[in-house]
């Protein structure tokens, strides 16, 4: 198993939540102090490098117009990390290609980072969460179709080396694609795709890309991995799906004693509890299928929304979205989820959120890296085959 330190670059210095409508999209940026923001960027970059020193890999992501993640141009931070880090794999998860108008530009950015880092890029692609469509003015209808056309075009741009090719698709049009530089890795950097529902996972499995899923807990994750394994097998990729094709992201905090672990875990909950977003931003038309919207109009609620209203450390651990405690406890919690979902090869560690201070974040990183990670690597080898039962 590989562990990745993931930090959202959050800006937590906000007025009380009842004084604003939404932490995303419409929160005025006068609240953001660039002086404090600069210190936070320094700090978060330092924490990634500490994670690298401790033997972990590096992961970052991208969101827009939000205090939860002040990283609206993740390839810029990725480029900085490519020069600052030395050995860690660099995962961006990911490029919101349903919302980027120029897929070839994304291919160029990723190729550049791959060369800068001498082949350490892991290139992730996401459809983007619903609140991203307004900042991008991106149509929420047919996002999946745009994502797949963009991805295929990016892969072709990475792997075509004999001069320009043309692309006249449904959503994107180019007459002469011929990127410089080309990627460092051959045939191209590893590709990751994230999802929180099974519907897209079968298609990801059919391609053999790495499937990541965020905070989907026991049954949600298992359904997504099952769909991935089904897609993999139906595409004729063989019966065995290696665990290194599957990734899970959880809130993770390990500390030598329970009191410190508890305090850190409480602070990590900010990631879930701070996400105040009204329905008109959280559910634009077309983002979820018609039947899912009908169910919501009949009163159904997204599991994560229900959790947010009464978020507790115990509840988060129970739901499988948090691993927190002493090293033994964290290992047990991980193993419980690992066994339930049929195994995964990558743990994407949401290791910083809100007011979790630098020293606390570093304690979590070091405790995990030194006390949990070696056992996880021994017990959950990269060569394992995924599957339940």
């Amino acid at each position: 198993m590989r562990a990745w330190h993931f930090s959202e670059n959050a800006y937590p210095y906000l007025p009380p939540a009842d004084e604003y409508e939404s932490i995303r999209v419409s929160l005025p940026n006068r609240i953001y102090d660039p002086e404090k923001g600069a210190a936070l960027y320094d700090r978060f970059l330092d924490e990634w490098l500490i994670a690298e020193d401790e033997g972990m890999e590096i992961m970052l992501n991208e969101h827009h117009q939000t205090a939860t993640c002040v990283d609206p141009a993740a390839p810029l931070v990725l480029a900085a990390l490519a020069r600052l880090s030395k050995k860690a794999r660099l995962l961006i998860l990911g490029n919101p290609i349903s919302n980027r108008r120029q897929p070839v530009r994304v291919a160029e950015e990723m190729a550049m980072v791959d060369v800068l880092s001498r082949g350490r890029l892991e290139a992730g692609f996401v459809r983007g969460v619903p609140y991203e469509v307004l900042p991008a003015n991106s149509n929420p209808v047919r996002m999946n179709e745009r994502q797949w056309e963009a991805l295929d075009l990016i892969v072709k741009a990475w792997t075509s080396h004999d001069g320009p090719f043309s692309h006249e698709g449904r959503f994107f049009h180019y007459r002469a694609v011929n990127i410089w530089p080309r990627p460092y890795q051959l045939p191209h950097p590893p590709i990751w795709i994230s999802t929180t529902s099974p519907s897209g996972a079968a298609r990801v499995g059919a391609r053999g890309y790495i499937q990541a899923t965020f905070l989907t807990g026991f049954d949600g994750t298992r359904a997504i991995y099952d769909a991935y394994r089904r897609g993999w097998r139906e595409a004729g990729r063989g019966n065995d799906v290696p665990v290194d094709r599957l990734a899970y992201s959880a809130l993770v905090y390990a500390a030598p004693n329970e009191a410190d672990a508890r305090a850190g875990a409480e602070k990590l909950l900010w990631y879930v509890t701070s996400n105040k977003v009204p329905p008109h931003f959280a559910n634009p038309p077309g983002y979820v299928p018609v039947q899912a919207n009908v169910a919501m109009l009949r009163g159904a609620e997204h599991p994560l929304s229900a959790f947010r209203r009464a978020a507790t450390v115990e509840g988060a651990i129970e739901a499988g979205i948090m691993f927190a405690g002493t090293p033994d406890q964290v290992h047990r919690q991980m193993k419980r989820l690992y066994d339930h979902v049929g195994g995964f090869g990558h743990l994407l560690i949401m290791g910083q959120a809100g007011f979790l201070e630098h020293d606390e974040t570093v304690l979590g990183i070091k405790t995990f890296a030194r006390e949990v990670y070696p056992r996880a690597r021994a017990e959950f080898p990269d060569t394992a085959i995924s599957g339940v039962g």
Partner: protein
Amino acid sequence: MPREMVAIAGVELELFEDGAGPPLLFVHGAQGFVPEQPYVRMLSAGRRLIAPSHPGFGRSSLPDWIDTVDDIAYIYLELLDRLDVRQLDVVGCSIGGWIAAELATKAPSAVRRLVLSGPVGVKTGPIDRLDIPDIFATPQSDMERLLFHDPERMRMDPANLTDEQLAISVRNRETLALLAWEPYMHNPKLRHRLHRVSAPTLFLRGASDGLVSAEYLAAYARLLPNARIDTIAAAGHAPQVEQPEAFARTALGFLDAGAMS
């Protein structure tokens, strides 16, 4: 109610036809076409009422190549050919007004007289202000006030709808986003084509319409060579629903004033 599915240019179109007399095309708004609403029989009294559900609305299919109002206008030109209607009156509401305006620029001689009720489709105001409030970024409670003169009376309760009706209403909204997301609620080309609309045109507006302002409507009407404006009292963005009698009387009054000999 007489509804059937017809295949038009690759779209399975849900088509309502009722009544006899001079043909009248009704082009519905974002809420979709509901034949049970009272204004429908008022419009079909003495008229052959033709009311398709737009692609992606009601039970009409939505081929993946369709993503603009322009596409729908062409589908309806094909529908008129199929029905062998050479010329007719057209009433369009809200986004249906936009479709009707596009249609009239493409085939001016097909439209005898035109009523546009709370139409969108053009950009008339400054670059840094939306002409139409952003319905996709407005809380539901505010939307009710923008849409209706009397929100209490008009409020939709999902509990009173069947699953199919609810699914249709969700899908209607999805298709609306597909068509009107960007450029928001308009086609930048349309204003430069409206000079072609030769039909006498009535712009209608509910006096309490919070989406289409009087200023917007006046600027829109000025783009057509032969347009005038009327207002329906005690109605919002959907006067045909909130004040069906006044809506039908005003629209038909305008259309009948130029009665075919």
